[in-house]
């Protein structure tokens, strides 16, 4: 990419004096042009450093505590559909709750079925749900293992 005096001046006035803030596609060319013409751009760099310094000390309050938890509380949970099946099953068997012995017996049966399903489901927790797969993809990872590799370093 060719760099001109005018464009380098634009970059400094637009993105500041710190090359890391310049667009990646133009950075190398801009740095090469700057190193060859340092004196010419020094006044612009000085002005830009002043604004960079001002922006660097601007205060920012902390993120409210508990916000992440409040957001996650309404997130779709892995296996939500499984619990949904259990809830629907219970509501079908006991639309008004367990009020009579037969209802209690059916409730036991239902709990056994749901419990068995939940136990069976535990072994599959090693595999991400559809929602999780999509989230990892949105994060730019192929899956949990890749995500953990980066997080754990």
């Amino acid at each position, binding site marked *: 990419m060719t760099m001109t005096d005018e464009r380098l001046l634009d970059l400094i006035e637009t993105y500041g004096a710190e090359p890391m*803030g310049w667009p990646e596609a133009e950075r190398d060319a801009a740095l090469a042009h700057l190193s060859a013409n340092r004196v010419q751009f020094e006044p612009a760099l000085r002005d830009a450093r002043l604004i960079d310094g001002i922006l660097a000390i*601007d205060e920012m309050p902390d993120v409210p505590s508990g*916000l992440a938890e409040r*957001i996650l509380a*309404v*997130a779709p949970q892995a296996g939500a559909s499984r619990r949904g099946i259990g809830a629907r099953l219970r509501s079908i068997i006991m639309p008004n709750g367990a009020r009579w012995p037969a209802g209690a017996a059916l409730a036991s049966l239902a709990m056994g079925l749901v419990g068995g399903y939940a136990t069976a489901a535990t072994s599959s927790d090693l595999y991400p749900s559809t*929602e999780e797969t999509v989230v990892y993809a949105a*994060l730019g990872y192929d899956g949990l293992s890749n995500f953990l590799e980066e997080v754990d370093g």
Partner: protein
Amino acid sequence: MAQAALVNRHMPVVWRVAYRMLKDREEAEDVTQETFLRAWKMLPDWQDRAKFSTWACTVAINLCRDKLKKRAPVLMDELPEHEDSGLKPDQALSQKQAGERISALIDALPDRQKEALTLCAFEGMGNIEAAESMGISVEALESLLSRARRKLRDQLAEVQEA
């Protein structure tokens, strides 16, 4: 775990963008929660969508713009060009006071300039992604950024001359 990772990675950025735009903790929190609420609804159809950070910032910025429109009869880009920060060069300001005055200078920028500055200068977002988040071209983003920085520089010069 995946949802927590997504929130931990992107929620602080969304909140900071919203806070810088609104300068109100509760409203910024509302915007952040609403952004993720929409994300949860979108998840099943996420494929082929934009990068999550771009999408989340776009949603948050639009929500902030809606709130700002409702807030007061001040049109975007018609905010005062200059606000007297009260900063005197001979004042020995504590870091906190200096920070507050600098925040006031930045707050006085027109909303669109503040958005551009928030995404690029504060959040370190690349120009293409920032422009996409704001729904404008890269050229328009650069124009907003350079005008914002020029305005800050002029205000500082005025303060120093005062």
